[in-house]
């Protein structure tokens, strides 16, 4: 009895505020724009009974999805989101791996402190962390002043409002997601394995490639997915650091909704974004399950 209550309350909450909203998005993506409040057609009219439901379903169509294919803005936005996310993930890996490695090889009494230093930005506002780069990357910003002061460049570099700034933003904000799983994998590794490899004639570098990297693979995979998945749908970073030509799907959805007030198209964009995300999410789930099996 009590157990049933325990299950039912969170279950109903999630059904009402997670699943049902999602079904509504799906439904609106199949509706048409209308100059009404709310601005779409058709409305489900239960007062007309069965006929109302039939009319409702009859009016649904895939017009918005067809529209998405005709205007190549959306296609380009999806493609460029994926490209930016994948590139940024790889950069994050290159930046994050040495840090995780250094942490795992640091003296044991230092590790908790280093770990705390990686986690601390998690608790700091995401928005503020993205914003902090605006002051650094702008034309009159700290970085340009510094480089001009050094005499490396004569003219300020245009970094803010370009894709480069977006990469920097993603790498910066998602770096802890990359470091933590790799660190966890490396820390578990027995250092005598490296000694054994070297004892058997491997050089330091080949021991690293042949032993350390394969053993931290689970951490690398987890870290990459943890960075890739949220950055595909990212909105704040491209809108603050990116330029008008930076196309990312989260931003397109936002603008479609708030600026164009085209709810059905915004919903259709959301549905496709989710479909694209399902692939990496399922892959991630699989690799996690596999890692858990192997862990047993």
């Amino acid at each position, binding site marked *: 009895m009590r157990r049933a209550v325990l299950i039912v309350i969170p279950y109903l909450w*999630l059904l009402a505020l997670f699943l049902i909203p999602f079904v509504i998005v799906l439904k609106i993506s199949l509706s048409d724009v209308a100059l009404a409040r709310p601005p779409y057609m058709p409305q489900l009219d239960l007062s007309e009974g069965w006929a109302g439901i039939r009319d409702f379903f009859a009016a649904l169509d895939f017009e918005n999805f067809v529209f998405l294919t005709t205007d190549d803005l959306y296609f380009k936005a999806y493609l460029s989101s994926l490209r930016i996310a994948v590139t940024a993930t790889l950069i994050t890996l290159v930046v994050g791996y040495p840090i995780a490695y250094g942490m795992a090889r640091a003296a044991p009494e230092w590790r908790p402190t280093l770990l705390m230093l990686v986690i601390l*930005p998690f608790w700091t506002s995401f928005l503020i962390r993205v914003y902090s780069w605006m002051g650094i990357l702008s034309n009159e910003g700290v970085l340009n002043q510094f480089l001009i002061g050094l005499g490396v460049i004569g003219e300020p570099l245009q970094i803010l409002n370009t894709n480069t700034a977006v990469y920097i933003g993603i790498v910066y904000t998602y770096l802890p997601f990359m470091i933590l799983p790799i660190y966890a994998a490396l820390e578990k590794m027995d250092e005598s394995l490296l000694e054994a490899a070297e004892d058997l004639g491997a050089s330091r570098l080949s021991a690293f490639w042949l032993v350390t990297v394969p053993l931290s693979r689970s951490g690398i995979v987890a870290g990459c997915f943890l960075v890739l998945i949220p950055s595909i*749908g990212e*909105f704040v970073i491209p809108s603050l650091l990116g330029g008008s030509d930076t196309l990312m799907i989260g931003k397109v959805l936002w603008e479609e909704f708030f600026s164009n007030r085209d709810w059905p198209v915004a919903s259709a964009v959301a549905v496709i974004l989710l479909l694209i995300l399902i692939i990496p999410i399922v892959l991630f789930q699989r690799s996690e399950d596999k890692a858990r099996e192997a862990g047993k």
Partner: protein
Amino acid sequence: MTRFSWFNVTSLTLGFAFLYLPMVILVIYSFNASQLVTVWAGFSTRWYGELFRNEEFLDAAWVTVQVAFYSSTIATVLGTMAAHVMVRGGRFRGRTLFSGMIYAPLVMPEVITGLSLLLLFIGIGMDRGVVTVVLAHTTFSMCYVSVVVSSRLVAFDRSLEEAALDLGASPFDAFRLVTLPIIAPAVISGWLLAFTLSLDDLVIASFTTGPGATTLPIKIFSAVRLGVSPEINALSTLLIGIVTVGVVTTSLVTKRAAVQRAREEQAAQRAT
């Protein structure tokens, strides 16, 4: 070994410089006297004064704290229940759907969560304001709470609950008197996480908010869209300061408790 240590020290130094320099620069510039954010014109706390006189920011901060408090509290209750169901619930109808709904919000892009909740609120004719933001924040942060609490529950020695039952406690008493005090640290960190997520959220709040319920992130976002502002620098510095003090204090307290405990355990072993 020396070569590698050198490499490690370099990568750690550069890495942490990358993580912390932007924030340090932000903090430094918040004490800049100049209106022009890029020109250093001497130390001043002028922008902090301006900030505290800005009614809009103060209102937004108050709304944000309220939203964060309510949503994280409800999310902690629901998330703990959900965690209990996931770890201890055994099999029941729709378990797969349930666990799917717990994990999905963690990977769902915020724009989609925000959009879908907004469409729901419009669909049921609910006026948007503080309540809708609280509902929205509760929904996604309860999933984070549930993940944090279930990882603790999985490690929890089940025989403690059984011992309580065996000694005559009802299942509810066993939870109240034994399980809850022991998993309390996880529940508290779940609450803190939910609170921070809510304080921090821009996208979902933007979708689900209404008149009179502008949260601080929305306010900051609309201010910085146009460029860097000294007042925002001051505000950011305050927020960074609060978080740093909080996290550092918590970790010091936890560490001291762990050291104390280890010492007592050793003493107990030696005594025999």
